[in-house]
């Protein structure tokens, strides 16, 4: 098959391009989900909290972010913020740091909204009686949350968080808009010099699949581990 032959030749000649792209995509997805999880936890806590203004604010944020394209959010963060004199720091020994920072920041803000809903539904899926039992023993609300509810919620949350990571790996291709050399961007670079489109995209698709498949296997493995621990 000539198609597969050309795929092979493209991959072997441009493996450094693709490798760089895979690395950058993984870096961005990892930090986006990590920071997104922190933000999402905060949002979920605010949204489930008793204080109405912050509850409303968290809901509004989540709805807005989930209801607008990531592309536009990214453009506003990277090009809009500097117009308000808010810039991302440069780090001399990491090339393109401010770009990565902006890309990760935007992806985190976006992912945070989705993670907030994952966490909220994960917590709400834990039987109310668990928290009530803890409160009835004299535990404070936050103690009940940390000791009893969250450890159980994590078992609901982790698989969904794994899916989110897979989603972010795929969606991160959008950061190429601000010049981060992720896998999609590097693939376009390969196309631009080889003039061979479908075969290059096929190589990228395989690489994306490997990333997402390995990720979901790892998550499934972690899930089994946790199940063994707590039943």
């Amino acid at each position, binding site marked *: 098959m000539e198609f597969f032959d050309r795929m092979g030749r493209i991959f072997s000649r441009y493996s450094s391009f693709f490798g760089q792209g895979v690395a950058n995509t993984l870096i961005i997805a990892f930090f986006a989900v990590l920071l997104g999880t922190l933000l999402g936890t905060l949002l979920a806590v605010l949204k489930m909290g008793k204080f109405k203004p912050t509850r409303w604010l968290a809901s509004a944020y989540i709805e807005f972010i989930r209801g607008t394209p990531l592309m536009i959010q990214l453009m506003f963060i990277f090009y809009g913020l500097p*117009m308000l004199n808010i810039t991302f720091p440069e780090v001399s020994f990491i090339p393109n740091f401010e770009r990565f920072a902006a890309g990760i920041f935007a992806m985190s803000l976006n992912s945070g909204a989705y993670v907030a809903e994952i966490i909220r539904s994960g917590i709400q899926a834990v039987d109310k009686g668990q928290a009530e039992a803890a409160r009835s023993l004299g535990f404070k609300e936050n103690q009940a949350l940390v000791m009893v509810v969250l450890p159980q919620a994590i078992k609901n949350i982790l698989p969904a968080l794994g899916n989110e990571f897979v989603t972010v790996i795929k969606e991160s291709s959008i950061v190429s808009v601000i010049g981060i050399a992720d896998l999609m961007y590097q693939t376009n670079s390969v196309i631009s010099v080889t003039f061979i489109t479908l075969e290059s995209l096929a190589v990228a698709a395989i690489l994306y699949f490997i990333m997402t498949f390995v990720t979901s296997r790892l998550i499934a493995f972690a899930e089994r581990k946790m199940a063994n621990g707590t039943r």
Partner: protein
Amino acid sequence: MKKVLSLLMAGMMAFSLAACGGASSTASSAAGSTPASAAASGGASSAPAASTASYDYSSYTGETIDAIKAKGKLVVGTEAQYAPFEFKDLDSNFVGCDMWLAQQIADALCVELEVMDMAFDGIIPAIKSNQVDIGIAAFTVDEERAKEIDFSDVYQKDQQVLLVKAGDEDTYTTKESLAGLQVGAQRGTVQSKLIQAALPDSELFELDKWPALALEVINGNIAGIVVDGAVADGLIQNNEGLAKANFVFGEEADNLGKAAVLPQSSDDLKELVNAVIANVTADGSFEAAYDEAVALSKSMGI
């Protein structure tokens, strides 16, 4: 002939660097390196190219130029995915004739060149938010864009080519033969303007990138696409389904050209850029850089 010229100019560099106060950059192994190689994004200058530093630009001053000199680097925004104008070589260096031109401008300012690689659509926003000083990315002079930013003088007019499905090359030879049919071009490019001007009876079909456009033609969805000559060569060489139509654009193609993009109200920088463009187009060094970039991009096929 071009080799000779390039060697000659490399030789001239040695004493011409005086214009930058001596301490500046890399004069040593100038000869032999490709004129198209430019600085990597980090700002590390790896481009002892056939420079035109023999020209003295020290008389150009102003607010914008002073600011660039103060920070010691010229930040150029581009999308390195458009060979032979801007692309990456196998070592991920930014190369291409636009990058060569960027280096000339940086040299004229006696500063380092820093290339910022980004999506084409992001370059003008980046200029407006002062993240880059200039955009050089095979930009076409365009009245709509001129409301947002300034254009330099035109530095390049490539031959425009109509690509069609292999076998159709003798079908579509006149604008009448294309009447009522869809002809594609990259959105907002010189080619899309050209289609509107030269093929008024055809329907313009725009997409963001030429790879998808080429597939549209190969699959027979649209009659043809108009691309830069260098892109046409690369596509034909690597895609059996494509061929050059026996079609020649008339004078409509003459008024279109590529220019650098600058922020508005930076006339001092614009004058300097225009002076550089005037010099490198007049002495043939830009053409030499273009030819070498074409050769380099051809060597990168599989």
